[in-house]
C-alpha cells in the first residue's frame, strides 16, 4: 500500500499527458461529478456508460496497468460481501453493486495519479476547517518522512529477533518500536514548526495556487465533463 502511494505520488508529478497538465480544480470537479453519477445513477445503462468513461480516463492517463488494476480490484472483496447480503436472484443487482464502487475507485485513481498532492489538497484545504486543511499537507508529508525510518526500524527489529517468539511479545515490541516513531514525530514537529516560522508561516498552509490555473489541457477535462453531462441527460431515465 505504501509502495503504491509512493508510486502514485511520483506518477502524479512526472506524468506528461494532457490530464497531468490540466488544472487540479477541473479534474477534482469532474471526479466528484463521476462519483455522484455513479452513486445515484438510477439505471444500469448510465452506470455502464460512466464506468466506460472512467476506464477511458484511467487508460489515457498512462498510469501503469498494474496500478489501475489494483485500484479497480480493491473494492471487489467488500462488494462481494454486500452482493451476498443483498442477493435478490437477478443479475442486475450484483452488476450494479460492482460497477458503482469500481467506477468511483477508478475515478479516484485517475485523479490522484494525474494531480500532484499540493495541487490536489490546496482546493480541499480551502473548504475544510483550518486545522484539518493544514493536517492534510502535514500528514501526507509526514508519511513519506516516516517511511525510511520505519523501514529501518522493522529491519532492526527483525535482525534482533523482535519478530520471533509468541505474538504477545512481538506485538509489545512492535509497540515499543512505534514509540520511537512517536518520539521522532514529536521532535520533528518542533523542527517543522521552527521551519514554518522561518518561512513566514502566517497561520495557515494554503498550498500553491496552481490548482486553478487553466490551460489548453483543460479542454480535455471540459470535453469529458460534457460527455458525462450528455450521458446523464440521455440515459438518466433509462433502465
Amino acid at each position, binding site marked *: *500500500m505504501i509502495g503504491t502511494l509512493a508510486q502514485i505520488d511520483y506518477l502524479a508529478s512526472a506524468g506528461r499527458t494532457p490530464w497531468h497538465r490540466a488544472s487540479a480544480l477541473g479534474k477534482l470537479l469532474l471526479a466528484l461529478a463521476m462519483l455522484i453519477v455513479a452513486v445515484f445513477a438510477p439505471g444500469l445503462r448510465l452506470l455502464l456508460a460512466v464506468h466506460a468513461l472512467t476506464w477511458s480516463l484511467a487508460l489515457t492517463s498512462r498510469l501503469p496497468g498494474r496500478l489501475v488494476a489494483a485500484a479497480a480490484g480493491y473494492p471487489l472483496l467488500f462488494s462481494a460481501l454486500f452482493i451476498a447480503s443483498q442477493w435478490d436472484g437477478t443479475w442486475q443487482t450484483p452488476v450494479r453493486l460492482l460497477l458503482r464502487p469500481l467506477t468511483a475507485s477508478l475515478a479516484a485513481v485517475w485523479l490522484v495519479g494525474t494531480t500532484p498532492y499540493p495541487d490536489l489538497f490546496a482546493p480541499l484545504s480551502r473548504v475544510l476547517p*483550518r486545522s484539518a486543511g493544514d493536517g492534510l499537507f502535514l500528514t501526507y508529508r509526514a508519511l513519506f518522512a516516516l517511511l525510511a525510518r520505519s523501514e529501518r526500524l522493522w529491519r532492526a527489529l527483525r535482525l534482533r529477533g523482535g519478530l520471533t517468539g509468541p505474538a504477545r511479545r512481538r506485538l509489545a515490541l512492535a509497540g515499543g518500536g512505534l514509540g520511537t516513531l512517536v518520539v521522532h514525530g514529536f521532535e520533528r514537529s518542533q523542527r517543522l514548526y521552527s521551519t514554518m516560522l522561518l518561512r513566514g508561516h502566517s497561520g495557515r498552509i494554503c498550498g500553491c495556487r496552481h490548482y486553478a490555473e487553466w490551460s489548453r489541457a483543460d479542454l480535455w477535462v471540459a470535453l469529458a465533463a460534457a460527455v458525462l453531462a450528455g450521458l446523464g441527460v440521455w440515459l438518466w431515465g433509462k433502465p
Partner: protein
Amino acid sequence: MSHLHIPDGLMPVWLWAGGLALALLLLARGSRAARGRSPQHIAYQGALGGLMLAAMAIPLGPFEYHLTLAGPMGVLLGGAGAFQVAFVVSAILALMGHGGLTVVGLNALVLGAGATVACRAYRAAAGRLSPAAALALGTAVGQAVAGGLWLVVVGLGMRLATGWSSRGVAPDARLGVFAGIAVPLWLLGIVAESLVAYGLGRFLGRVQPNLLPRSPEPGVAASAAGPT
C-alpha cells in the same frame, strides 16, 4: 475492525451523508476550539497522522486487517485532536482508493469515537495503573467501542437496501454469517491493539513520559509546545 473499507456506492445514502455531515460539523467545532493552539500542535498531529496512515496501510493478515492506533492517538492528542487526525487520514486513504470517499465521515466518526473513549478511559486509569497498563486499558476500551460502532454501521448498511430494489433486504441468516466472521476479528483487534499500546506506553513511560498525559489536559504537545 474499526475502519471501514467499504467502497463508494454500497452504503445507504442517508447513512453516509448523515455521517459526513456530522463529521464535518464536529470537525468545524474542533477546529474552532483548537484556534488558540500552537501550530506546533498541528505539526505534531500531522506527524502522528503519518504514523496512523502508515499503520493502516500495512495489512496484517486476511481481510486487509491492520492496526489503526486510534486508542494511542486519542491518548496522545486528546479526543478532538485525534478526531481531526482520523478525518484527515481517512480522506487521504480514500483518495488512494482505500475505502470510499463517501464513507470518510463514517470512518472519522468510528475512529474518533474510539480515540475519545480511549482518552477518557486512560485518564480515569492513569492515577492507579502504570502508563503502559493505562494506555493498554484505554486502547482496549476505545477499540471495543470503535469495533462495536463498525459492526453497527456495516450491519446497518447490509441490512438496508441501497435503493435499487425493494427486495434488497438481507435475511438475518446472512447477517449472522457476517457477525460470525466480524466478531472474532473485532476481539482479535482489541487484543492486538492493546498489546501494541502496552509496548508503546512502556517505551514512552521510560523514554519520554511527558508525552503521556497525566493531568486532565490531554496531549503533550499542547503543553510542550505552549501558546506562541
